[in-house]
């Protein structure tokens, strides 16, 4: 087997190990410390806001070189292309190959940096130690100042995770599935409690490092872009309300920057335990919208769930519109008088538009045209607002109003 591996070219390994990494949704390169190489002594910069260097036809951004160190894995997670019981082709990069690919891609402006993950080989500690070695080599030997995102191995020695945080902008650990029983069922070797403990450790370490010591100096930065996680949607029976409740708990408990939702997608050589389905892309999209409502629009998970009959978000209209349709006694809202919290609840008005409304309102009373210029989606907003020159007709009954927004039902198609 080792002989067969030695014969793989760099190109073949890259094909295998990026194919194996693509089911991780996270590709963000934003947040964290600002750095550059204007001093000429290294390469790379991070500006705080990420850059998507390309888009694949799946609509996903390509910002980082997202690869696995190896797709050999001793775990047997049913949803994963790399599980031990799968017959996919296996490969393993040397640390030098990962370093060189990262730097050469970076110099050509293909990427913002590296997102390195790995199957578990031999033991969690050895796997984590190899990943830390790659990050250390990039930072220390090559003066790399681009973005580094390391997937940490939940069971690895906390000291290795602490070292990883010195080199990485972001650390992440996937909770994988929304509930503990699902993890037990589909990822038997993983422990939800150990995953939470690892996230708690990252948060506690980051906070400890950002505190000033008695000398008034701060320690070295630890994972300045924070930590994130991913949940697979549609592999188990969890409802959207369950998923969002888990997210809320993760955001509050571990200071996560992002929770990624990844629609369970067909993989080569799937497991008999998890029949393949068409990936629920619209459901994934609605979950992201709801996640935004939770984080930036002051919504509570219970409010969102109350407008999601059966615990699942309406696929035909976005969750804010669904909430407004379910709470139409609160509308129409006078855009010229309502406070920020209320404005944020109007369908079709985003945080930016609300900021513009508040700034302009200090000078004059707003009309329909003003709102148009401010970037509001008036098709959505119109029944829910009043302006100096606009008053909606009485809000129609539920079905009528919803039908104006929902796309006409499509004929069901086979896959």
């Amino acid at each position: 087997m080792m002989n067969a591996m030695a014969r793989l070219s760099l190109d073949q390994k890259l094909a295998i190990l990026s194919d194996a990494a693509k089911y991780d949704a996270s590709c963000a390169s934003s947040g964290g410390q600002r750095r550059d190489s204007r001093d000429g002594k290294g390469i790379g910069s991070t500006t705080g806001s990420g850059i998507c260097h390309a888009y694949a036809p799946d609509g996903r951004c390509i910002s980082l070189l997202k690869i696995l160190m190896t797709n050999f894995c001793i775990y047997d997670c049913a949803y994963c292309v790399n599980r031990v019981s799968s017959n996919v082709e296996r490969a393993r990069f040397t640390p030098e190959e990962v370093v060189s690919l990262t730097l050469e891609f970076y110099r050509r402006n293909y990427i913002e940096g590296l997102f390195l993950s790995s199957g578990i080989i031999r033991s969690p500690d050895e796997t984590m130690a190899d990943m830390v070695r790659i990050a250390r080599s990039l930072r220390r030997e090559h003066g790399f100042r681009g973005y580094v995102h390391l997937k940490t191995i939940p069971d690895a020695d906390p000291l290795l995770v602490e070292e990883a945080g010195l080199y990485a902008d972001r650390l992440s650990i996937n909770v994988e599935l929304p509930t503990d029983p699902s993890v037990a069922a589909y990822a038997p070797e993983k422990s939800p409690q150990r995953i939470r403990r690892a996230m708690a450790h990252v948060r506690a370490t980051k906070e400890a490092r950002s505190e000033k010591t008695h000398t008034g100096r701060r320690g070295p930065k630890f994972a300045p872009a924070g930590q994130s996680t991913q949940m697979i949607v549609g592999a188990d029976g969890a409802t959207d309300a369950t998923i969002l409740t888990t997210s809320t708990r993760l955001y509050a408990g571990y200071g996560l920057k992002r929770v990624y939702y990844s629609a369970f997608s067909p993989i080569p050589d799937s497991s008999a335990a998890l029949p393949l389905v068409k990936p629920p892309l619209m459901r994934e999209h609605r979950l992201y919208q709801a996640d935004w409502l939770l984080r930036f629009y002051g919504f509570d998970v219970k409010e969102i769930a109350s407008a999601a009959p059966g615990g699942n978000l309406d696929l035909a209209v976005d969750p804010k519109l669904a909430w407004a349709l379910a709470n139409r006694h609160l509308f129409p809202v006078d855009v010229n008088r309502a406070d920020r919290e209320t404005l944020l609840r109007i369908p079709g008005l985003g945080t930016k538009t609300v900021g513009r409304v508040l700034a302009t309102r200090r000078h004059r009373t707003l009309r329909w045209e003003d709102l148009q210029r401010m970037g509001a989606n008036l098709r959505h907003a119109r029944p829910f607002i009043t302006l100096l020159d606009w008053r909606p007709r009485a809000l129609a009954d539920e079905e009528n109003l919803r039908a104006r927004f929902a796309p006409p039902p499509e004929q069901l198609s086979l896959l």
Partner: protein
Amino acid sequence: MRAIALPRIGTSKAWRAEARALLSARVPPEAVSWSLGDPAPDLFAAPSAPLPEASAAITVPQAFVQLADCAVWHSDPERFARLYALLWRLPAERGLMSDRGDPALARLERMAREVRRDRHKMTAFVRFREIEAHSSRRRFAAWFEPSHFTLEPTAPFFARRFGDMDWSIFTPTLAAHFEAGALRFADPPPRPEIAPDATEDLWRTYFRSIFNPARLKPKAMQAEMPKKYWRNLPEAALIPEMIAGAQARAREMAEAAPTLAPARAARIRERLAKPEAPPPPAERPSTLPALAKALESCRRCPLWEDATQPVPGEGPPDAPLMLVGEAPGDREDLTGRPFVGPAGQLFDRAAEAAGLDRSRAWITNAVKHFKFQPRGKRRLHQNPDSGEIQHCRWWLELEREIVSPRLIVAMGATALESLTGDRRALLKRRGGFETTSDGAPLLVTVHPSWILRLPDPAQRENETARFADDLRLAVRRIAV
């Protein structure tokens, strides 16, 4: 009509200088015609007299400066005139810059947005190829076609990013060169030939492999990577065949029958196989480490579901004094140790004042899991209810049995309820000695987090001192 021709390099700075001079000379917008490069011959333009030097400093809102510095690079030939017309209105119309409904401002904001997007796309889609080096620094070059005059404002980004290499970016209207750390601009040569390098093949391999054919969404791709950029992206040539083959690939995956696991899978699984989770020990754990281990799998009440971990007690197994608090808080939940958060810090201060050595006492909680409500980025502490206190008493009694302290201090109503069955009238009972339900000596005091919640600083100070007094009572009692 005054004709002003701005240079192709340094356009923004030149526009600002001209606009400042025009404004201080009170030249109205309709009397100026702007152009880039050589002035277009305007037959009706009278030769204009030179403007006097701008006298008083002109102050404009920062927002205008930012807007102008962006919109000035737009390809719309009207941009200079539009900016000057807005500048002209600023002295008379205060607050104009925050009026997002003003049509002239909205138009310029849109232009600025388009330039920002074009700049962002340039930082994303420039593709360097390695070319022959002149020095020890590696050298790269790229050809790029922006929609606006974007290279000059964007080049510093590349200088900060690619500090240790030399590079050139050529566009149809301008070239930028970065050599030995110095950035300069020049008129562009005719489009240069830059030969592809070998790394481009690896990049194409990556682009092909990172794509998930089961999630085809070409419209989402094109919204962010419009076709106008494709001709200079080495990976874009692959897109049509990737789209064409996607559905067949997804179908193949779905239809393929599950295969038999490879032989090594069974070996590895055997090695990893854990003995089934041990059933809850029939006997009560008899040592503190065994207790902490058993606590891990406690399911006596549902609090474990949302908590990170249980927080066992801490201290020497033969401690003469046992301190019982309420339940772990945020910090305790994260670290797995009792009394390490803000309440723990207050406790430490009071203990020090009372001459109580924390490391010689057993410190624990009446309830072992954190109870909370998530609220945004924080978790709001919630008091455990009677049922939870009741379920967790099992653990506290076990701790008491193993440690068998000479005195127990109940801090707060929850501990008091757990130990005596009665949580009422805490403030009346504080500082007094009682006995637990099963007859062990007990001292009653408040919980340090109650002190932290007092609004008045003087009262907090006062109560901290009283809390220390209570602890001193305890120290004295066990010293006898």
